[in-house]
């Protein structure tokens, strides 16, 4: 058997390992080469390979019988002793989101960071990006509790560096604050995992779930639940633990903001779902404890308070950062229903909001790149409403893209955001919580208000003198952004991928959680 035949026969079986190993290898290579261009090429290639791997895994999961799981034993050590990678429908869905976003953002980043990061640091940026991607993919794919913590730290530490690379001097402060808060969150998570290990004597999530079912719920288990909930809530920026997020998103380089907004909080939501449904079990979390009520009210606060705050922001990145906090409220609201449809809504919105916000931040990054002036960094990376006056004439494609993505944030039919809201409403009606239907729809009106502010400034205010001429972003910036904009439209019309996989994942989770 020749080598290629051997490879092609073995490759499909090792996709779970490759999913993490490829981006992981790209990071040290990028550092060793010490060259921005090569680092870019390697990390981008790794991200695309990861995307291809994720597609492969997605197809493999589809070939299993419904509810099937791909279990991969690292180093051939069988679980629960060895580390296990588990890919089910939900995991492969999130892997696709994360690697797909990276595959879009990385090609885009080249033109953007040329304006935002000094050239001698470009290779560091790509190395950190590769690590962050590794961490996020690892969290998603692993079936081992301690492994989750390790990958969480990999992604978090690289994120702090990525944020601090922002040229605005406030980026350092934002990164530092996120460092403190992220560390507290990680500590909580490790304490929670420690409690669970103490009680069950295992770190394998599937094994842990079996053993937890067998024992009475005791105080350490409940404490573990509390620590994990709070720790993960902090990482996913659940109101009122969201305070690290707006500054981090505002002052980080645009490429980082786009990538984080689309993936980081989403992966944290994934971890929360994983622990609730696959480890603790639905009955403990949702039936015996008042946790759904707490989550319901925090979600409502997030939906209204954060969207309300967003309306009054003057900085566009900050506005959409607060909108992210509000949108996360929809995701956790879906969780709190404890039903297949509620969970489906959460999973769909996790994806739909990821691509929508990714598109918006890429387009805003385009505005930064076009108007950035080297030498006056803190001014040039701040996109205020005053600066986008009349932008609809100067950058028509960019502005139109933001409007479409904005419609998706509002939840206009025909956009991806509508599908998520629709399932949320279905879940609310199913639970006979009619007032929540009103709350969901009313909070959408707040989104109308902040998206409207953008429309008003970009289309109805005269441009400042001397800035009337057309100055659209380059194609390198526009094409990746419009890929995501097109995706928000596509997934608003053809829902077979998003709804199909979310529904299947939700059914699988609810079944395993009982």
């Amino acid at each position, binding site marked *: 058997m020749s080598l290629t035949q051997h490879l092609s026969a073995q490759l499909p079986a090792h996709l779970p390992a490759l999913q993490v190993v490829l981006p992981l290898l790209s990071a040290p290579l990028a550092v060793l080469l010490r060259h921005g261009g090569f680092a870019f090429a390697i990390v981008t290639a790794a991200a695309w390979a990861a995307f291809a791997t994720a597609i492969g895994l997605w197809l493999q999961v589809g070939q299993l019988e419904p509810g099937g799981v791909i279990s991969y034993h690292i180093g051939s050590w069988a679980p629960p002793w060895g580390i296990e990678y588990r890919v089910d429908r939900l995991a492969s869905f999130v892997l696709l989101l994360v690697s797909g976003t990276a595959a879009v953002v990385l090609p885009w980043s080249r033109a953007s960071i040329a304006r935002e990061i000094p050239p001698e640091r470009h290779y560091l940026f790509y190395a950190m990006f590769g690590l962050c991607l590794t961490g996020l993919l690892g969290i998603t794919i692993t079936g081992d509790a301690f492994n989750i913590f390790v990958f969480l730290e990999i992604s978090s530490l690289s994120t702090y560096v990525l944020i601090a690379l922002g040229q605005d001097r406030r980026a350092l402060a934002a990164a530092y*604050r996120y460092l*403190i*808060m992220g560390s*507290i*969150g990680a500590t*909580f998570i490790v304490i929670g995992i420690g409690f669970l290990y103490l009680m069950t004597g295992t770190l394998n999530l599937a094994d842990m779930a079996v053993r937890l079912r067998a024992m009475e719920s005791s*105080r350490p288990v*409940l*404490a573990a*639940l*509390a*620590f994990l*909930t*709070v720790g993960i*809530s*902090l990482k996913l920026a659940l109101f*009122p*633990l969201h*305070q*690290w997020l*707006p*500054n981090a998103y505002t002052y980080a380089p645009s490429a980082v903001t786009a990538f984080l907004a689309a993936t980081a909080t989403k992966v944290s939501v994934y971890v929360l779902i994983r622990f609730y449904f696959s480890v603790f079990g639905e009955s403990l979390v949702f039936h015996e*404890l*008042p*946790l759904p009520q*707490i989550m319901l009210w925090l979600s409502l606060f997030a939906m209204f*308070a954060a969207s*309300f*705050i967003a309306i*009054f*922001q*003057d900085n566009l990145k900050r506005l959409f950062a607060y909108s992210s906090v509000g949108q996360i409220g929809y995701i956790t609201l879906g969780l709190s229903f404890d039903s297949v449809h509620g969970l489906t809504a959460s999973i769909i919105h996790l994806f739909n909001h990821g691509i929508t916000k990714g598109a918006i931040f890429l387009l805003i990054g385009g505005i930064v790149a076009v108007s950035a002036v080297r030498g006056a960094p803190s001014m040039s990376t701040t996109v205020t409403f005053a600066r986008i006056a009349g932008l609809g004439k100067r950058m028509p494609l960019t502005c139109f893209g933001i409007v479409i993505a904005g419609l998706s944030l509002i939840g*206009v*039919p*025909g956009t991806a955001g509508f*599908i998520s809201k*629709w399932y949320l*409403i*279905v879940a609310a*009606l*199913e639970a006979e919580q*009619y007032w929540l*239907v*009103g709350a969901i*729809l*009313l909070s*959408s*009106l707040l989104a*109308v208000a902040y998206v409207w502010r953008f429309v008003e400034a970009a289309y109805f205010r005269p441009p400042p003198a001397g800035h009337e001429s057309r100055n659209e972003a380059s194609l390198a910036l526009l094409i990746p952004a419009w890929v995501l904009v097109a995706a928000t439209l596509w997934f608003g*019309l053809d*829902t077979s991928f998003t*709804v199909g996989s979310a529904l299947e994942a939700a059914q699988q989770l609810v079944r395993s959680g009982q």
Partner: protein
Amino acid sequence: MTDALILHPALILIGGALLLPLLRGAARDAAVLLLPALAMAALWLLPEGRLWQVTWLDYQLAPLAVDKLSRLFATIFALMAFAGGLFALRQPSRLEVPAAYLYAGSAIGVALAGDLITVFLFWEFMAVGSTLVLWSAGTATAWASSRRYVAVHLAGGVILFAGIAGHLLTTGDATFTGMQTDSLAHWLILIGFLINAGAPPFSAWLPDAYPEASWSGTVFLSAFTTKTAVYVLLRGFPGAEILIWIGVIMIFYGIVYALLENDMRRILAYSIVNQVGFMVVGIGIGTEMALNGAAAHAFTHIIYKALLLMSAGAVLAATGRRKCSELGGLFHSMPLTTACGIIGALAISSFPLTSGFVSKSMVTQAAVDGHLFTVWLFLAAASAGVFLHAGIKFPWFVFFQKDSGLRPADPPVSMRLGMILFAFLCIALGVWPEPLYAMLPYAVDYVPYTAGHVITQLQLLLFSGLAFFVMLNYLKRTPTISLDTDWLWRVAGPVFARRFRDVLQATRGSLTGTLSSGLNAISNLITRHRHPSGLLLRSWPTGVMALWVMVMLLAHLLSDFFG
């Protein structure tokens, strides 16, 4: 395969609206006139039935479904777009006609929608298009009222959507058919529809917004929103009894406010509410005759109301004045406008031989046939009232009355042609109603020109005409402002909020150190949030953030242990 070749009339207009801003000069003029004509041709080439079928989220959608009722409304909408486009051909604003075509196309889309989701989509497009029409007037008052307008319509859209969602979930069927007012979801749908129809207590958006549009914008606005609402009510809630009483209230609301009003276009805007009231009553009665009457009345009303607003628009464009008290004697120099205004006024008053007579009398007759004596009495009284406020008051104060000394010329040829077209239709439909009757959803077994009908109507009109001139002194308008329900949110709301805050701030002094800290928080909430250093807007110190983490942990631990 023939399905793929079918063109959706709504998409022709909407697509054309997007292309119009790119065109200039004669090409643009040609496109403005051709687009509605194309839409009309496409509409009449369509066979009946559910022509487009799409599956979306497990629901069967039919974005293009044609029957007699939908064809009737789509026809009048396309006709209206044509005449409006002709009238607005010399409108300097480059935004208005494309916006109006988006608006008209969406209205056609609603009329041709076979399912509720498509209805909702075009419904929202209509809100966007009409808001843009309003804006293109470019004045500060238009800007302000467009914001109130869009707020009302978005809120209405939210209510409608909540209802549609509930309907879909309970029935699992998206088809747009008749519904009963038997569940919360259906009530929400009905309320959503009624908000657009201008039913009280949400009617104030209409007279607030429509008179602020440009001289041609109001013509478009008058036609589509309320009449699509009539269409969806006809299809969705025929025979819902509550509609009779809502309609009666609308009729009298419109008359009273129109009599009090001084702004000529606001008079006509109130009379839209009044006329839609007649249609809503017809829908509420729900017999075949009544539904035919409501549909026919919507058809004729679009024509004569547009004609009235065209003549008012011509006056506004020529003089720049809107108030009855500042106008008068214009018949000297604007004979054509005067003639067209009078024809419109006669039609709205249902004078025999005009279009209003052949349609409104069907609703009245249906009330008689249904032995609804009270309703008939109201309708008869209202007919007199319509003659008072729209039939005589508008032409009298604008074109005759005292001589204001103004001598503006008749408008340019495109505007004149638009008016002549609709004036012709007003008379033609009154003299020869058979084509209209043939388009109605049910077979028509009704002869308008019987001696009884004609004599009753003439008596009614003569006596109210007499009343007008006897009471002329009381009806002379001074420049006043009439309070409507929108006063509640325009004035009383902010005043109340300010009072509330003042009171709260006053208590701070007297109750310092006790309960006042909590009250302070509320009283300053809004101001604080609007400030960059407001509580939630500023960046919290790390310690405070960490504190929140502890609070959350404690809350979770306590609730987990003791909950």
